[in-house]
């Protein structure tokens, strides 16, 4: 189903749309406040963007350097071309450790690879330990936002879910109570776990280390209690030097939630005595995106979610309307590269207002890439006949002054004289909730001819 159809369904409950919009706008405002507190913010964004530009232009060498340094530090490195390889590698590592109970912190990559169902089918329990992810997991849903996975759920809905799955008492959606109940439940899961999976926020070529950021502490609880820690990363997570983290960590949390930094920014360089760290480096379509000059910089993304919080369409359509692992503006330029047909409506789910590009901490020109995807989609994907023919004819009309005069005249005539029931028919989507412009008098061409005889 297209974004517009799903969004229209989401919009049937206007109160919920208002609630969703306000919740995310609040995050956008927190981001603004946090950014205002940093001297040189725009320069910081600019620098981050340039570092990412350098990374993509030297990605193979950085990955090789990263691997060599990681191996030196006793970290095991694996490479996966696609989701299937990734899932098999993770499973194999877990199998070697005879791991049956796995805790996983937030990783959009493992969502993208559909790791959970793969492991579950092999008899391994996977518990998502980020509270938001835990909520969507027990609800058997997918995250609707990359930083706030359960932002689409009200506290009352969470209350009901917890009653059903954790046996909690009804609390009218008391967040403290619910969080604390989840804490107790998840502590048992951490203690039982024989394997931990995390994502990777940054992988440093120079040191072979990785940085994982969380607010809850769930990545560390998992990684330090289980005998094996598997960290999964897309190839684009590499940064050249550890000092570059100064740039990225200053931007990440401020852009994401308005915090000056996440509670925990953990730097893993060597496994603890008696434990293992495995890093799985994944392509899964990224090298293909790298080949597309116009869309390459989408790989700069550090997954802060700021473009979602600011997007007036995302806020009013909900993450699930995008039907993609990564929703919102950034998802709308990443997803078509993976499956053009499935995601062909996403680049049109935008007014090209450009707010996304302005908040992006790594300055991805998101709205310009949406425009570029549109040009490709109308060529490669079959378009609704009516839309296509109208636009093709429009092109002819606008390129020809005689046709333009004719069409202008008849459109004005229609608007002025056609009976209301004809104008506001089913075919007129504009007119469902809006009046058409009132045609008052002659057009400007005619006015000009009459009133400015000497010119033109």
């Amino acid at each position, binding site marked *: 189903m297209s974004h517009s159809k799903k969004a229209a369904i989401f919009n049937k409950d206007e109160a919920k749309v208002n609630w969703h919009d306000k919740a995310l706008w609040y995050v956008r405002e927190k981001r603004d406040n946090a950014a205002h507190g940093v001297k040189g913010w725009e320069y910081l964004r600019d620098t981050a963007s340039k570092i990412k530009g350098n990374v993509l232009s030297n990605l193979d060498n950085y990955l090789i350097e990263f691997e060599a340094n990681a191996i030196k530090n006793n970290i095991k490195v694996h490479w996966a071309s696609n989701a299937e390889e990734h899932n098999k590698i993770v499973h194999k590592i877990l199998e070697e450790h005879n791991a049956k109970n796995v805790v996983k912190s937030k990783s959009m990559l493992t969502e993208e690879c559909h790791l959970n169902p793969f492991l579950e089918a092999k008899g391994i329990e996977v518990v998502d330990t980020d509270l938001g992810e835990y909520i969507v997991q027990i609800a058997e849903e997918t995250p609707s936002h990359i930083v706030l996975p359960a932002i689409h759920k009200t506290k009352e809905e969470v209350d009901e879910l917890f009653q059903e799955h954790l046996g909690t008492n009804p609390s009218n959606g008391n967040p403290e109570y619910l969080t604390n109940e989840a804490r107790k439940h998840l502590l048992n899961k951490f203690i039982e776990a024989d394997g931990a999976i995390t994502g990777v926020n940054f992988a440093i070529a120079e040191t072979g280390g990785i940085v994982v950021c969380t607010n809850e502490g769930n990545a560390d609880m998992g990684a330090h209690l289980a005998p094996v820690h598997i960290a999964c990363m897309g190839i684009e997570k590499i940064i050249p030097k550890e000092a570059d983290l100064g740039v990225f960590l200053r931007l990440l949390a401020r852009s994401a939630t308005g915090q000056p930094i996440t509670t925990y920014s953990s730097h893993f360089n060597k496994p603890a005595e008696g434990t293992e760290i495995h890093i799985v480096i994944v392509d899964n379509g990224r090298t293909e995106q790298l080949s597309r000059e116009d869309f390459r910089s989408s790989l700069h993304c550090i997954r802060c979610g700021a473009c979602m919080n600011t997007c007036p369409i995302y806020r009013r359509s909900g993450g699930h309307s995008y039907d993609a692992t990564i929703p919102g503006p950034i998802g709308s330029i990443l997803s078509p590269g993976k499956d053009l047909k499935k995601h062909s409506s996403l680049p049109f789910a935008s007014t090209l207002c450009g707010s996304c*590009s302005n908040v992006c901490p790594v300055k991805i020109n998101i709205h310009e890439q949406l425009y570029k995807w549109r040009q490709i*989609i109308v060529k490669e994907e079959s378009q609704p006949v009516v839309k296509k023919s109208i636009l093709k004819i429009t092109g002819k009309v606008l390129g020809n002054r005689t046709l333009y005069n004719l069409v202008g005249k008849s459109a004005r005539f229609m608007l002025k004289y056609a009976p209301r029931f004809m104008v506001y028919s089913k075919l007129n989507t504009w007119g469902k909730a*809006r009046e058409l412009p009132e045609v008052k008098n002659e057009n400007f061409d005619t006015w000009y001819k009459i009133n400015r005889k000497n010119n033109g």
Partner: protein
Amino acid sequence: MKVGLFIPCYINQLFPQVAIATLELLEKLNIDVYYPNEQTCCGQPLGNSGYEEDSKGACRLFVENFKEYDYIVGPSGSCIYHVKKHFDILEQTSEVIKVRNNAFELCEFIVKILGKTDIGASFPYKVGLHKSCHGLRGLHLGSCSETMDSHYSTEEDLLNNVKGLELMSLTRKDECCGFGGTFSVFEEAISVKMGKDRIQDHLDNGVEVITGADHSCLMHLEGLLNRNEEPLKVMHIAEILNSTI
């Protein structure tokens, strides 16, 4: 200075009063202004819909019509932005480059090129400024709420000099109204909701007249206002600046 007046197709056909106000305003400012009468459209509706290829005819015609002028001035930020940004699909002849460089949105032309902010207008109403996205984030007519640069606004500079006009502050300074060209029909539900929310912000802040430098946004908002019979009017900024009430 020879100025070519660019009147976007929908303004020509549906909002001639905006075109007239623009022309009269430029004449008041003693500009030698011409209206090339073979003009049609900048091609934006096609480009934004993915049919950039089919817009080349319109783009070429635009260049043909305006190549002889020192400046091309139009009362629509998004059309001017399209000329400047997306005429890269044409072969970059000296004529195309000239047209792209010399195209200006009306307010920007008055403030930046003519160096004027007070043009002797008066308009005794409470006005809310809708900062249209392409003018704001594309042409940089003002600072954007997202970036940390110091505050400026070309339209505010002009409106603050209009006698009697009270510029009202909005809660969300520069959120999109949801027009977005064909977005307004292909994503009808969201488009309408965005427009309603923008209008509510103006209502909440005591606005009597919504203005802006892009009449396509205003057309969308006006369509909603008229359907819902809200006590608000929309006027293009050229109409306010040309007003001596």
